[in-house]
């Protein structure tokens, strides 16, 4: 397996104003590690508002100026930062943003999809493949329906035949069946060698399409494991949070644990999940490294015990 993207100990913080000129640093992503190989779909699953989109924007160097990003990000073995990623963006690495507002409102969609590096032929080929009727390329975004705009975003991502696609919530407002249908193309791309990072809040969707699932909690990835470990039961999972997440699904036990996710700025020290965890003890304080357990990666002091 060839490694495409590797993120190690990523940390993102925003410098914010409190009152007047008093500044403070708000850390939203901490110690996040993740890797994507050629030809696989890795789904990052976490609840809305927990900072998943910031992960994508940090990797792609799209964050505003008041953000500080530290940690290692490598693409095919080369270190990248927000400047050096520019030469890959739109060619090797493509981004499908969450909202259709990312289309330029005053540019015809055909020209947008072609962009700087694309060709007319490729655009026509992609439009046909994605069922965009002839003449769509002459339209402006406001003349396209929501579903069409989404497909336009996908075609513009595929223009450069990318090796890595970062898709942020690509199927909003679709129910599971339609979303899985829409992601069939992703599966096909992955089978042809593209690596896909799929960011979603819908765990059922991730279970249906991904090869590996990264469980995102309060700004960090607690567990990264093959999708088989998540199906049916929680026995094979390594982290108490992912176990309780799977147990709480309506098709499984539907039994919740207590408590809520902590906020950025109000985080517990040590393990982020420890205030809600039944295994909590002295080992949970302090820095807990990502370790390999039974073919998956997990950040838990007790993972190796059981």
């Amino acid at each position, binding site marked *: 397996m060839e490694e495409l993207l590797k993120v190690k100990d990523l940390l993102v913080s925003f410098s914010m104003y409190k009152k007047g000129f008093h500044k403070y640093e708000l850390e939203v992503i901490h110690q996040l590690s993740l890797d994507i190989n050629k030809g696989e779909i890795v789904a990052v699953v976490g609840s809305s508002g927990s900072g998943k989109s910031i992960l994508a924007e940090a990797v792609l160097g799209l964050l505003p100026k008041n953000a500080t990003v530290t940690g290692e990000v490598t693409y095919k073995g080369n270190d990248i930062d927000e400047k050096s990623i520019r030469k890959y963006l739109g060619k090797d690495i493509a981004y499908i943003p969450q909202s259709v507002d990312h289309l330029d409102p005053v540019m015809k969609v055909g020209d947008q999809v072609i962009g700087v590096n694309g060709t007319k032929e490729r655009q026509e080929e992609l439009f046909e493949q994605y069922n965009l009727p002839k003449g769509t390329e002459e339209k402006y975004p406001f003349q396209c329906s929501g579903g069409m705009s989404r497909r336009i975003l996908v075609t513009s991502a595929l223009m450069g035949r990318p090796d890595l696609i970062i898709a942020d919530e690509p199927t909003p407002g679709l129910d599971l069946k339609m979303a899985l249908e829409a992601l069939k193309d992703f599966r096909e791309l992955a089978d042809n060698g593209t690596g896909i990072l799929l960011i979603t809040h819908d765990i059922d969707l991730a279970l249906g399409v991904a090869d590996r699932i990264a469980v995102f909690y309060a700004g960090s990835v607690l567990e990264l494991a093959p999708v088989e470990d998540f199906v049916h039961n929680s026995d094979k999972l390594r982290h108490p949070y992912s176990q309780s997440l799977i147990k709480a*699904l309506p098709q499984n036990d539907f039994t919740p644990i207590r408590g809520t996710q902590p906020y950025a700025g109000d985080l517990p020290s040590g393990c982020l999940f420890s205030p809600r965890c039944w295994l909590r003890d002295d080992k949970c304080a302090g820095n807990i490294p990502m370790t390999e357990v039974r073919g998956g990666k997990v950040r838990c002091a007790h993972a190796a015990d059981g």
Partner: protein
Amino acid sequence: MQLTGENINFKYTKKSPWILKDISITINSGERVGVVGPSGYGKSTLAKILAGYLKPLAGSVSLDGGDLPKKGYSPVQMIYQHPEFSVNPRLKMKDILEEAWVPDDDLLGRMGIEKKWFTRWPSELSGGELQRFCIARVLSPKTKFLICDEITTMLDAITQAQIWNLLLDEAKKRELGMMIITHNKSLAERVCTSIIELPELNHIERADV
């Protein structure tokens, strides 16, 4: 008690396509009717019509044979998908909670609402916490029917299970009639006593226009 919608027809403007055509639905006390179906089939429109927020163009909604009350507290209440948009952002949580009635400590305890949240603004609570307030504020003893429009769609699985377990306990205790809109089939199978699917007919018609 019985909440019935009979032969409901609805479209939003004169020119727009029909959203609902000849839909009939009956909900008895103690029943939990799930409504599933993809987006655009008129699930939310049906919810608003049954709760009395929209008037059907043809057909009628009745509660035990009579009309829904036009003023005062309606026995048919709704819980929405986005709690952050269904509360007044300029009220503190205590005022939001007590808009229509004053819940007692016992109910707040069962709902998992902490008193220290009372002095916060809505923007200072998470979606799951906010949704608990939205549920507690409609659980007055006068409420007989609850219409839940995708109330846990935006929440993570653990919070979803927390909210539904609380709500189901309460609904069973009070024999509430519920209409539960969701696109999650396994959730519907878990919480509902019966499930209906809105006909696809509407959708085909919409595509033709």
